């Protein structure tokens, strides 16, 4: 759901740019004081993997495709701040090098997929984890992954409606409906990768140690 240039009016994309730049600056400042050595290679691998995976569109239904966004996957592994930063970096390279997502819309795309998708997605995962218990970590991650895609789609629909390209009553339900299905792909891929990481190198999962009593 990378918004191209032309869909959003300045009254929508400028505030989105400001909000995204503000949050990211705060995240970078916070990471500069707390990022652990072991997070550095993991962030690089995750960013590379998410970029590659975002190229792999899977058919969803009747002539519609979707691909992994990877926000919750990233945040579960490197935390909400680093997760949002690597998603933003992936979105920036996609816009600058491949015209996947517009430059004017980059702030909105970061807002939807990095700030809501990864950062907020992490707290949805953390809340579900507390509710379900650590034994159902994969369920928490899968549900958060699904919800993060629907949430990002809803925000995208709102921005399109504010920009006046389509009435809210049409564009919001249409965006939400399609992404109910695309989100299932997101949940499946997220769970499959996390299951592997938890089996092979569980210490790579963010704050797993800190959760232990």
């Amino acid at each position, binding site marked *: 759901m990378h918004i191209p*240039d032309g869909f959003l009016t300045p009254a929508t994309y400028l505030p989105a740019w400001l909000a995204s730049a503000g949050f990211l600056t705060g995240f970078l400042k916070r990471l500069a004081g707390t990022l652990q050595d072991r997070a*550095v290679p993991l962030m690089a691998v995750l960013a590379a993997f998410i970029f590659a995976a975002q*190229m792999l569109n899977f058919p969803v239904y009747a002539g*519609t495709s979707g691909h992994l966004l990877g926000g919750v996957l990233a945040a579960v592994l490197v935390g909400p701040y680093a997760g949002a*930063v690597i998603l933003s970096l992936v979105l920036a390279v996609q816009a600058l090098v491949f*015209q996947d997502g517009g430059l004017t819309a980059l702030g909105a795309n970061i807002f939807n997929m990095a700030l809501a998708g990864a950062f907020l997605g992490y707290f949805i995962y953390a809340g579900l984890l507390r509710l379900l218990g650590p034994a159902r970590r994969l369920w928490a991650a899968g549900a958060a992954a699904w919800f993060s895609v629907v949430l990002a789609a809803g925000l995208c629909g709102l921005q399109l409606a504010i920009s006046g390209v389509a009435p809210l009553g049409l564009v919001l339900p*249409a*965006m939400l409906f399609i992404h109910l299905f695309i989100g299932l792909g997101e949940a499946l891929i997220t769970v499959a990768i996390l299951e592997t990481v938890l089996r092979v190198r569980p210490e790579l999962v963010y704050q797993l140690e800190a959760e232990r009593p």
Partner: protein
Amino acid sequence: MKKKEMLLGLLIALLLAAFLSPLASSWPDGLEKVAGQLGFLERGGAAAPAPAPDYLVPGIRSGALSTALAGLAGTLVVFGASLGLAALLRRKRVR
């Protein structure tokens, strides 16, 4: 994460980008589909030129090869940029 694991992870990402990206579904994604249905797809465009629009490296006739090369290049750029950024963030703490 050990250095060997990092390189293995990068290799997996490169293999996905090179060999699976040409096989990806070319159906419109969720947003494009909605834009088509609601009639605002043609409003979309690009505000500035880019080196490889739509994941195609200019000057290469084969679409699959062009996509694979774009995927490889993009994966390396993202890997390098995030490694550099993360290393910079980590070093700042020491100062």
